[in-house]
């Protein structure tokens, strides 16, 4: 990716002349604002950003970003972005998706993008509901949820997006919240810096069809108790440092720091064992606080690099292809 240090880009450069049409009060506004704040700081020329989305409320995102953008079809953004990135590794390609888009109709593309480790930045807006189709339960809605399509309560077991990602061999996995603006910006920045697929789940409030889904951990008086903010190399502390997480094997347990001493608290390792990241990803109320931050950041071969290295290697060893040799190089005969 080409980066130029002094591009003098500002938030305004990334705003379009289109009216933003999300419902007033939607969490998407906050996410858009952070993108427009972070993109100018990445040292990437504006014309090298591409934002690709599928279908859903979140998928309108590209229309509001003054970059190259592609609003595609339901669930397919990872596949479209993969094709683009393979041919154009010079671009910074961002995939915007929602819980329905990426975990229902597009589940297959999501896991295959992750296992290949295509150098894409994926931001999943998880509002645990179908918003655009006006309020049906989604694959991340909790059991028992009453919606238009589940008037007696949903009986579907939900996906946990980060569990899915880790199960698909994701090398970079993070979680953040629409209301935590600074944290959200920091996560976008970390995703941008990562080489390979970076998967960021954003808890996003749908104030029309699923209002308050994350209130238990976003309200001012709840945050301390129910958010565990991860920092690499730091102990897993929350409740203003009074409580922490220890691990017994791969089983997390909440303890009082005063009882066990700070040294007993588990220290977060972004490049630690995947089973640890998996356990961390699944912590939630009422037993645990929800972990936000970079849960996992490791490095492995990047798909588009490998594809293009193979092409280059073939050119280096066989020489650039010639049509004459391709056609006339096999077994031919002359007819006079």
């Amino acid at each position, binding site marked *: 990716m080409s980066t130029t240090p002094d591009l003098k880009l500002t938030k305004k450069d990334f705003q*379009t002349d*289109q009216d933003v049409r999300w419902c007033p009060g939607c969490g998407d506004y906050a996410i858009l604002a952070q993108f427009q704040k972070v993109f100018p700081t990445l040292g990437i*020329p*504006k*014309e*090298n950003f*591409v934002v*690709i989305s599928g*279908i859903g409320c979140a998928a309108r995102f*590209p*229309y509001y970003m*003054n*970059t*190259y*953008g*592609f*609003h*595609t*079809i339901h669930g*397919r953004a990872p*596949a*479209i*972005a*993969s*094709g*683009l*990135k*393979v*041919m*154009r590794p*010079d*671009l910074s390609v961002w995939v915007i998706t929602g819980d329905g888009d990426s975990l229902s109709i597009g589940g*297959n*593309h999501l896991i*295959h993008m992750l296992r290949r480790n295509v150098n894409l930045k994926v931001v999943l807006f998880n509002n645990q509901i179908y918003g655009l189709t006006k309020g049906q339960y989604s694959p991340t809605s909790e059991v028992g949820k009453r919606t238009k399509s589940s008037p007696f309560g949903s009986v579907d077991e939900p996906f946990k997006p980060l569990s899915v990602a880790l199960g698909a061999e994701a090398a970079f996995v993070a979680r953040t919240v629409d209301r935590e603006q600074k944290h959200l910006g920091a996560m976008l920045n970390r995703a941008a810096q990562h080489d390979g697929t970076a998967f960021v789940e954003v808890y996003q409030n749908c104030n029309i069809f699923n209002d308050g889904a994350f209130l238990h951990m976003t309200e001012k008086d709840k945050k301390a108790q129910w958010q565990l903010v991860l920092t690499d190399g730091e102990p897993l502390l929350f409740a203003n440092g009074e409580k922490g997480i220890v691990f017994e094997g791969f089983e997390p347990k909440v303890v009082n720091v005063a009882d066990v001493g700070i040294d007993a608290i588990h220290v977060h390792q972004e490049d630690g064992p995947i089973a640890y990241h998996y356990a961390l990803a699944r912590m939630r109320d009422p037993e645990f606080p929800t972990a936000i931050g970079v849960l996992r950041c490791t490095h492995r071969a990047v798909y588009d690099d490998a*594809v*293009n290295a*193979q*092409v280059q290697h*073939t*050119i280096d060893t*066989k*020489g*650039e*292809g010639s*049509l*004459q040799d*391709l*056609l*006339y190089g*096999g*077994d*031919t*005969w*002359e*007819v*006079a």
Partner: protein
Amino acid sequence: MSVANIEELDTVTVRFAGDSGDGMQLTGTQFTYTSALVGNDLATLPDYPAEIRAPAGTLAGVSGFQVQFGSQQVFTPGDKPDALVAMNPAALKANLNVLERGAMLFINTDAFEKRAMAKVGFDTNPLEDGTLSSYRVYEVPITTITRRALEDTNLTTREKDRSKNFFALGLMYWVFGRPIEHTIEWLDQKFAKKPEIAEANKAVLKAGYHYGETTETFGHTFKVKSAQLKPGTYRQVTGNEAVAWGFIAGAKLAGGELFLGSYPITPASPILHELSKHKNFGVRTFQAEDEIAAVCAAIGAAFGGSIALTTTSGPGVALKAEAIGLAGIVELPLIIANIQRGGPSTGLPTKTEQSDLLQAMFGRNGESPMPVIAPATPGDCFGMAIEAVRIATKYMTPVMFMSDGYIANGAEPWKLPDVASLPDLTVNFKVAKSEAEGDTFLPYLRDPKTLARPWVRPGTPGLEHRVGGLEKSDGTGNVSYVPENHQKMTELRQAKVDRIADDIPDAEVFGDETGDLLLIGWGGTYGALHAATMHLQKRGRKVSHMHMRHIHPMAKNVEGVMRGFKHVVAAELNMGQLKFMLRSKFLIDVQGLNKVQGQPFKVGEIVERVERYLDAGAQS
């Protein structure tokens, strides 16, 4: 060669048939390859089961390879074999109904034991009960002689038996007077790392050849002279190979790099295999997780400025439909190569059919027009692939390229094109706003002649823009729900495709432009229709053949040619799909000559049906 009588023949059709594990495809391919090198014109028909190894000795497991070669131009793999090699009772049983009286049968007698015969319903031995009395039967204990030829090797009996197809090949080389050297060279190369296998196969090949020469079983052998082909350099090519090379060439001529998104599917997979070999042309092949991802990845590549291709067969096209519609509304070049097979659903994966034409035309939601083109022969796939690239990039549109299992797997000698004479398809990406645009780039500002919108590579400063599946305003590309705008955009997308008619050659007409009956075909039926028309003309019938390579839009001469004939018959391997289109477009009373048996047309059946039709018409 012994002093046997040598009979000269114009064309010969040979069919190799055995169990699907017997190596019949390889045997047929080698026979074809040698025949091409001695200068015969030819056409082939591989005919094999969908199962990789169907139960041994059953009718379902019979794998066949038919080739017609000749000293004159050959247009089809032949209707009925003049010679059949049957490696077991099932192979004999499966082919008895296609044999003409007097055909030669080469039968591996070792395989005719009671149980094997009973398995396929021969209650008595057909070699003894008179079943084969109208054929020239040559009984050869192929398995026994093969084992004997390999007595001195360390191979197991099983391994020895695996070479028996080379005995059949050697014998056929002798019977039809072709050299064994090319296959010997090929074996040396193929098994360079396993010389003992190469030696065994060579020994058995020679044993087959010498068996023909030294036994007195064969009264005479046959000679087929070289064909009078147009001067030039030739090579043998299958349709799928020519498709792969055509797209490599098309991308290069366009000045771009080729991206293939594909999910393995019969009979299209060989294109994926072939393209994945040619990375030094900058080709990237992406074996996707499914058909939808394959086409979507190609659309992403097209958005990035690459020549984007997805290869598949009918079921895959069904899955790709929504994405093809996306390529249509965002107006990006995308080529979908549909190597058709028998349908519906999984249908007949390894058999040919032309039943996806209306799917190509209409198989998407909304008004979603796209150009449809179809190659006529294996070699023609090369030029038509280049044509697909030309139309897609010039008009910024998805293009459906309709091959079929018959030409995909079939081979013919192909006169190689002069590389320097291939068309220049250089793409001019838009790199800056025009004066008319001022400060605002208009991604849907159209070329007044082609109605194509500009193609911009992401990374171009100042031309950042958004495209998407929602209806958009012409010019700005901004999302629009304005009623009149949707009408306008729908009409524009259709008009853009319609205008391609000004930019394509006339449909090829063989014969007079007026007459009693016009046979219209498209795609891989070319050879059979052409040969049938030649026969009919020789018999004094006023019949011509028009072949359509461009189906949507149609070439401008199509209507005029049709109106020059008393009767118009569309011959297709479906239930009448082109007929449906022609009737609705021109209000001409087109009749259908249709077949859906998973097999190509036979020349004889076309001749017969046309004559019957003409004679019935003359009486009424």
